[in-house]
Each structure stands twice: as structure tokens, then as C-alpha cells.
């Protein structure tokens, strides 16, 4: 391993601009003549718009325009789309109701767009937005999943009877029922997966700019996938033709899924810029808006059952989930509870029979879509809560129950689509157990008891699926796009390199890790490598960054393009050095004839390619190659987490005293960055388990937790230091053997935390977030039962 190559703990190239305040986030762009947009948003969860009076707003100082949904319709701008088609059990396509960028007749959640005011300054736009008078007729609203599917519930979309967009199923129903009928033991649970708000620290921003002379649009946007945004805005929403729309996603301050989606606000900014004659229109979300309109995550209510035989082998798993999709179907909302959730219900275990039914339910709440982990945390939570509960019911060690059921042979075909390619679940479990000194836990429990604290330990063995692919497979499952990645390598005449990638970095450190790959292959220092991303005018196409795909898919494309660069370099060097191509090796920035002292610097070969004075017969000048990479399968990162807590029985407060993670991510490019990704994921998973959760008022549909005052974001003093380590089985499906590490922490940690707390308090009946109040109440139940 070189100092800057694969596996090296290289400090990040991108840091300097961020630590000096010179990052360039979307809101930092200040285009000439910019106008500012403020949205008028519905204060009601469900209401009919009877009239909108914009006259006072139009007359307010600085106002350039006040636009409503009917003008959007007049201009034939389409609604927002859901890009993944899911079919119900009876074969019928999902019932996706209309999702206009600005509501026309009916608003369906608090925060729904009703009008937009465009003014000379942000302050003027907000002032004038207050003057738009909307006459609403309030309608009954429903926010609760179980209430929404009851007869007589308020209905959101005429297409979706009983508010059900689709009722989908996977697995073999009859075989699973037979397994339950024959079971020696059955474990049943009602499980709620709490609704979360992604809350990247940078709120969303859009700047739409129309050039009337060129009839060309530019969108600066906080996006994880600018090309996808361009495709959807042009081909589906119809704002601009694709070749007349440039999307730029500059530095982006975190995404966690919430910046994948194409939202109404960017649509409106682009459209409005044309409407007002071409001045740029800028919208900067404030945090309250982010709470109301950024897509939320999770929100499942599940009934789950596990069947086991007399040897404690799992014979069946049955799951019925109501998945909240909110008021509208967001861009990938249909895929999350289905193909990203139910397909992972086999966990790390050999489960011969699985049957899962998922009902996607509309409610008068913000749309719900992918949030870090997207479906896989929900699956892991179901499986790992069941495992721990089963062990307790059967009176056996949770470690043994897992070991008894681990998949040990690969490839392994689960009953729910996934074919696991490689893994060693015992290795990560052993690593986690020894790092946490699991065997000596009871001594620690006793010691804690002497201090009046209740100590508990919880395990979670998760699996996830990253790099959603191959394209043909996801296409057959309903995806509207392919999920490959592209890369282009441009070697400059001086031998420096530009890598153009369709991946997008919003904290993941691609400018460093991608350069490390180039260093590994061409031997040039990473400072001579520039990573170019986030601009549809520069990068030809790409699918962006989500689902932990940038390493496994994005870097595989770079690797393939580097193969081509190497091949041409060798051919040209062989010609220049009058040697055989087969003898040429590239090492340490040199292109050498193996076993001789004959060599050219890589930069000399690059220059020769551009001067083209002396090329082999038929070779084109230049040194630039591109590649598209379509994976052959998902990748399957997996690991084991051990959480240890102490609960104060007086207050119900939980302290995490130890958190151990052992993950198998396959090949690792930069362990420092991988550790950081795990830390961040753990914080979000622990946040879900202990602190975070949306609360809607059941009657009015108001989001009560709509600010950082009310929604508990994890702070430094809520979290412990993490003990993270990795084990390794290479992914056989991609050239680098990578699996992906971005989401694991958020996927694996919630059940570990809840398993630990329920162990500490001796009551398994506890839902997330396990606030001090809930834990205290559960403790009262425990002691009442003991009396």
C-alpha cells in the first residue's frame, strides 16, 4: 500500500476550503439581479382552497410577482413524480395521486405550497407572503397510519381508496403459513419504527435562472444527484428540455437521502425565473420549512412473527407493515418500504420461508422517502428485535440464537429476492463480542447495580444492500432509471488528471478517496488529481450518491475508465520505448519496461499523447477515457453491533456507556473516512433509538416537532465515543471488492440500543425513541408486575 493509495489513512483534500470558510454551498452563490422567493404555505393539514387574493401582496414593496398553482398549470408544468412503479398483490399499478408543485384546489399537509412571492429582497418576499390571503375550507385530516386505513377516514386522493396507494407482498404465503403451523415456538411483536426528519445541517436551497436569449435554464441546487434532477425536471415535470437545462450541485452540506428527491421548490424557481423575464429566483429554506417539506424517513407500523423449530432454527417470518408515505408520493417513496425493506427481512439468517405484506398509506403529513438506510433500518429493526425477543422467550443466549441461524455458505439465495454474494457473519460477531468484552458483562451489571444503575447489553447483527443494481433487475422491479454509474478520466498534457464522476459528494470525501484510486493505479500524487462532480455541463451523466453506492458503483466506473487509460498509456509507451506492450508496467508515476532501467515519466507519455508527433499506427491523439459501470448485483455489507447502557431507575434516563461496531465493508479505500461514516451513521441510529421522532397532532395534523427546540437532534453529550472496527470479505461483484459504508451505522444501531435498554429494565415493551419518560414508565410496569 502506498502512502496515498488504497487503504491509506489519507487526510482529506477538500478540508481546506471548509475549515477556512471558503466552501461554496448553494446559498453562497449570489447571481447578479437575483430575486428572492418566499412560499405561502398551508397552515392546515387538509383544506380546500376557496380563493387566493394576491392583490395586497402584489402591491407590497419590492414585489416582482406573486404566482399560484393555476399559473403553473397554465404553463403546462407537470406535477412531481414518483419514479419507481410498484404493483399491488392483485397486479394493479400503485395509485399515485397528483402532486402539483403548487397546490391548486386542495392542500394535503401543513406546509403544502399555495403560492410563491418573488421580491427584490428575501425580507420583502417574506413580508409580502404574509399578505397573500387564502380562503380555506378546512377538511378533516388524518395523520395516524391505523386511522388512515379505517373505513370512514378522511380520503387524500380519489385514486387511492382507503388511502392505500398499494398493497404489495413478497415471498411465499402458503409455505410460510405451513412453517408457522408446524413451529415449535412462535414469537410475535408489534413494532413501530418512528418517523424521523433527516435534517442535514444545510437547509435546501434552489436558484433558478433563465436566459431568454439562449432559452436556457440553470439550476443551482442542494442535490445529491444533479443529473437525476435534470432528467426529472425536463422529461417528467417539463420545465425545460434536457439540453437547455444545466443543474449545478456545488458543495452540499449533508443529504442523508433528503436531497435525492426533486421537490416543488426547485421546479418553481426555474419556472418563475422565466415568468419574470429571466432574473434569477432564489429560495433558501429555513429550518422550519425543512421540517415541513423535506421528505421524512421511516414511519412504519408492523406486526411481525417469527417461527422456530425445536432446535431454535428459524423456520418462518411473517410481516405486515403499514408504511406511511405522507400526503404525496415522493421521488422514490414506493421503493423504500418494498424493495429496500422487505427484501432484507432475512437478515443474516437462514430463513426458509418469509412472507411480507406492505401497505403504503397516504396521510396528511409531509411526504416520506429514503432517509439514511432507507428501508433497511426498518427491516433490521424488525429482525433484530425479534431475535433478541425470541432468545429471551426461549431462555437462550441471544448470541447462540444468532449463531444457530447464521448463513454460512455463499452465495445464498434468500426467499425475498436477494442473493447474498459473500460474508462472514461469525467473524464480525466475534470481533464485536471480544471488543465489548461481552463475556464479562454480568460482572459489570453487578457493579452498576451497586451504584444504583440498571445496566443492560444489546446485540444487533445487520445486513444491508447497497449499490442498488443491476439496472436490468431494478428496471424489472419498477425503477424508472438505471442504477449504473459513469466516469471519465482526462489526463492533461502535463500528466495531471481530472476525474469526472456522476457520484456526488456531500460530506463523504470523494475528492480524496477517488484520487487515492488514481494514485494507486497511475502512481501520481493525489494533489495532481482533481475530482469534478456536481455539474451536468461538465459530467456527461451520472446517478448521484445515495444507498452507499459511490464506492461500489462510482469507483468501479472510475476503475474501468482507468483500465482504458492504462491500456492506452502502455501501448503508447511501448511504441515510444520500442518495447513490447506486454513488458510495460506503470509504477510510481513511471511507465517502465519491466526488468530494465528504461522508463518514461507518466507525464511524458501524456505529453506524447497530446503532441501526437510519434504515435503508434492508428492510435488517436489525446489521453481521455470514459466508462459506464453497471453492477451485477447489490453489495451486502454486514456487521455486528453491541450496545451497553446504564439506566437511572429514578429518572429513566439512559446513558450509552459503550458502543462497539464491527462492520464488513469489503475493501476499504480510506479507513479514516470509513470510520467517520460509521460514527455519523451510529449517531443517527442512536438518535432514532433515544431522541428523535416526529409528533403530529392527531386532530389538527400540525407537526408539533417542527424545530430544533422540539425535535431532539443528537448533541455531543448524548453520545459516547464509539469503538469501531472492520472485518473483511471482499465483494466478488465489483472490481475493487467494495461494499459500501455510508448507512450501516444508522441501520444496525437502533435495535442494539433498544435491546440493551429492554435488557436493563427487564421489560421488552418499549418503543423508539426511548425517552426518559417512556423508559421510566416501562420500569414502573416492570416493578408493578413483580409485586
Amino acid at each position, binding site marked *: 500500500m502506498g502512502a496515498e493509495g488504497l487503504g491509506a489513512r489519507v*487526510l*482529506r483534500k*477538500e*478540508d*481546506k*476550503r*471548509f*475549515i*477556512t*470558510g*471558503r*466552501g*461554496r*454551498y448553494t*446559498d*453562497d452563490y*449570489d447571481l447578479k439581479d437575483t430575486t428572492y422567493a418566499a412560499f405561502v404555505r398551508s397552515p392546515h393539514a387538509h383544506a380546500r382552497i376557496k380563493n387566493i387574493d394576491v392583490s395586497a401582496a402584489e402591491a407590497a414593496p419590492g414585489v416582482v410577482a406573486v404566482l399560484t398553482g393555476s399559473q403553473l398549470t397554465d404553463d403546462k408544468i407537470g406535477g412531481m413524480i414518483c419514479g419507481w412503479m410498484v404493483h399491488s398483490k392483485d397486479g394493479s399499478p400503485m395509485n399515485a395521486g397528483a402532486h402539483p408543485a403548487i397546490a391548486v384546489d386542495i392542500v394535503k399537509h401543513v406546509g403544502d405550497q399555495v403560492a410563491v412571492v418573488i421580491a427584490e429582497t428575501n*425580507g420583502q418576499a417574506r413580508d409580502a407572503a404574509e399578505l397573500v390571503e387564502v380562503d380555506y375550507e378546512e377538511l378533516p385530516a388524518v395523520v395516524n397510519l391505523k386511522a388512515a386505513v379505517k373505513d370512514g377516514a378522511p380520503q387524500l386522493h380519489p385514486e387511492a381508496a382507503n388511502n392505500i396507494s398499494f398493497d404489495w407482498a413478497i415471498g411465499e404465503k402458503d409455505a410460510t403459513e405451513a412453517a408457522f403451523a408446524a413451529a415449535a415456538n412462535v414469537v410475535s411483536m408489534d413494532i413501530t419504527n418512528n418517523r424521523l426528519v433527516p*435534517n*442535514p*445541517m*444545510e*437547509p435546501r436551497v434552489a436558484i433558478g435562472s433563465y436566459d431568454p436569449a439562449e432559452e436556457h435554464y440553470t439550476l443551482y441546487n442542494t442535490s445529491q444527484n444533479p443529473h437525476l434532477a435534470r432528467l426529472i425536471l425536463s422529461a417528467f415535470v417539463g420545465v425545460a428540455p434536457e439540453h437547455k437545462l444545466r443543474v449545478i450541485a456545488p*458543495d*452540499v*452540506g*449533508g443529504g*442523508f437521502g433528503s436531497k435525492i428527491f426533486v421537490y416543488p421548490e426547485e421546479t418553481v424557481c426555474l419556472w418563475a425565473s422565466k415568468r419574470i423575464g429571466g432574473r434569477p429566483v432564489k429560495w433558501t429554506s*429555513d*429550518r*422550519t420549512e425543512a421540517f415541513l417539506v423535506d421528505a421524512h424517513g421511516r414511519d412504519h407500523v408492523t406486526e411481525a412473527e417469527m417461527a422456530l423449530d425445536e432446535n431454535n432454527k428459524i423456520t418462518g417470518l411473517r410481516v405486515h407493515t403499514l408504511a406511511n408515505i405522507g400526503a404525496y408520493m415522493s421521488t422514490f417513496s414506493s421503493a423504500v418500504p418494498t424493495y429496500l425493506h422487505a427484501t432484507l427481512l432475512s437478515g443474516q439468517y437462514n430463513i426458509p420461508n418469509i412472507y411480507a405484506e406492505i401497505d403504503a398509506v397516504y396521510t396528511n403529513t409531509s411526504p416520506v422517502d429514503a432517509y439514511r438506510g432507507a428501508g433497511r433500518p426498518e427491516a433490521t429493526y424488525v429482525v433484530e428485535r425479534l431475535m433478541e425477543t425470541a432468545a429471551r422467550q426461549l431462555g437462550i443466549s441471544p448470541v447462540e440464537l444468532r449463531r444457530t441461524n447464521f448463513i454460512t455458505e455463499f452465495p445464498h439465495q434468500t426467499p425475498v429476492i436477494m442473493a447474498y454474494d459473500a460474508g462472514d457473519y461469525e467473524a464480525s460477531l466475534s470481533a464485536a463480542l471480544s471488543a465489548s468484552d461481552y463475556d464479562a458483562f454480568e460482572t459489570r451489571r453487578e457493579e452498576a447495580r451497586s451504584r444504583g444503575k440498571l445496566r443492560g447489553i444489546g446485540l444487533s447483527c445487520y445486513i444491508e444492500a447497497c449499490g442498488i443494481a443491476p439496472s436490468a433487475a431494478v428496471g424489472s422491479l419498477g425503477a424508472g432509471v438505471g442504477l449504473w454509474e459513469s466516469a471519465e478520466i482526462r489526463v492533461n498534457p502535463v500528466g495531471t488528471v481530472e476525474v469526472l464522476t456522476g457520484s456526488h459528494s*456531500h*460530506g*463523504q*470525501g470523494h475528492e480524496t478517496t477517488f484520487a487515492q484510486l488514481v494514485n494507486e493505479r497511475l502512481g501520481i500524487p493525489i494533489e495532481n488529481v482533481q475530482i469534478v462532480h456536481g455539474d451536468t455541463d461538465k459530467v456527461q451523466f451520472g446517478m448521484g450518491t445515495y444507498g452507499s453506492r459511490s464506492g461500489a458503483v462510482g469507483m468501479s466506473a472510475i476503475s474501468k475508465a482507468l483500465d482504458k487509460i492504462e491500456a492506452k498509456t502502455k501501448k503508447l509507451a511501448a511504441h515510444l520505448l520500442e518495447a513490447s506492450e506486454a513488458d510495460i508496467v506503470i509504477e510510481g508515476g513511471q511507465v517502465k519496461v519491466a526488468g530494465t532501467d528504461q522508463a518514461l515519466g507518466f507525464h511524458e507519455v501524456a505529453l506524447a499523447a497530446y503532441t501526437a508527433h510519434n504515435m503508434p499506427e492508428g492510435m488517436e491523439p489525446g489521453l481521455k477515457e470514459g466508462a459506464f459501470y453497471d453492477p451485477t448485483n447489490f453489495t451486502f455489507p454486514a456487521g455486528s453491533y453491541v450496545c451497553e447502557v446504564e439506566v437511572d431507575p429514578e429518572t429513566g434516563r439512559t446513558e450509552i456507556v459503550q458502543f462497539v461496531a464491527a462492520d464488513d465493508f469489503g475493501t476499504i479505500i480510506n479507513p*479514516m*473516512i470509513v*470510520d*467517520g461514516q460509521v*460514527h*455519523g*451513521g*451510529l*449517531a*443517527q441510529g442512536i438518535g432514532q433509538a433515544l431522541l428523535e421522532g416526529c409528533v403530529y397532532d392527531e386532530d389538527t395534523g400540525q407537526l408539533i416537532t417542527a*424545530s*430544533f*427546540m422540539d425535535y431532539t*437532534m*443528537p*448533541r*455531543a*453529550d448524548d*453520545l459516547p*465515543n*464509539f469503538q469501531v472496527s472492520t472485518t473483511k470479505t471482499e465483494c466478488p461483484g465489483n472490481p475493487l471488492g467494495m461494499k459500501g459504508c455510508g448507512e450501516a*451505522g444508522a441501520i444496525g444501531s437502533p435495535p442494539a440500543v433498544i435491546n440493551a435498554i429492554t435488557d436493563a429494565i427487564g421489560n421488552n415493551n418499549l418503543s423508539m425513541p426511548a425517552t426518559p419518560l417512556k423508559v421510566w414508565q416501562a420500569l414502573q410496569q416492570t416493578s408493578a408486575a413483580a409485586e
Partner: protein
Amino acid sequence: MTTIAMQVNGKEVTADVEDRTLLVQYIRESLGLTGTHVGCDTSQCGACVVHVDGKAVKSCTMLAAQAAGKTITTIEGIADGDTLDPIQVAFHENHGLQCGFCTPGMIMATKDMIARHGTDLDEKTIRSELEGNICRCTGYHNIVKSIQAAASAMAAAE
């Protein structure tokens, strides 16, 4: 409108601002110093922390007019030319940032934390001192490490 004058990163600046202009808006929009960020509207996140007369202040909680006559330092003003502040170095060397959005506020808060507590900082103090700064990316693990490393480096340089 109010006319205000203050010193920002060593430079005297004057401007006419609307009375309601927040210090953070003035810094970002009028002065173009976009390293100071806005992450919330309830003064919770700390992305906007700057120093006012040497003390850490959330610049979203203060009107620009209230800063008149004061000395302001932002993230752009703490390096000495090409020589970075030891806290900036520590965040880089300990991977104390991912997306970087919270980072300027974290660094400015750290500077104040070390000024108040000295360089002998334990983990518990650091974690409780970070109460006013939210990071969604790092899980704080490496931020705490960065702050400890910065404190040690500053202690060694004393």
C-alpha cells in the same frame, strides 16, 4: 435603516442596514463572508458562531445594529495568512468534518471554549460545551478528538 460601523476580521466596515438585519445576514449578504452559516431559525445549531469582542456569539441571535462599534471575527479571519489556526489544523488532521457545514461554527466555538477553559480539556467538558453546536455528519466523535488535539497542540506551543 441604520448606519453601522464595526471592525470585521481586522477591517473597518460601514453600511446602511435595515433595522431588522441580523448580524449573520450582514456578514453573509453584505460583506460576502459566506463561511458563517445559517442552519436553523431558533438559535439552536451554532452554524453561525462568530466572535464578538473575542467571545463566541451565535450571529443569528444578534442584530447587525447591536454589533456596531464592536470587533467581529469570522471563520475567514482566524488564519494568519497561509498559517492556519491550530484548531483548523486539528479538525483537518482528525477528520473532524464531513460536509463542512457545521465546521466554521464548531471551530469558532472551540476557540472560545479553549479561551475560557484553558487547554486542559477533558472529554466530558468538551461534550457539554458543544451543547450549542449541532453536527449531523460526524457523530461528534472526531470533533471531540479534534478539539482535544487542538488543545494539546496549543498547550505545547505555550
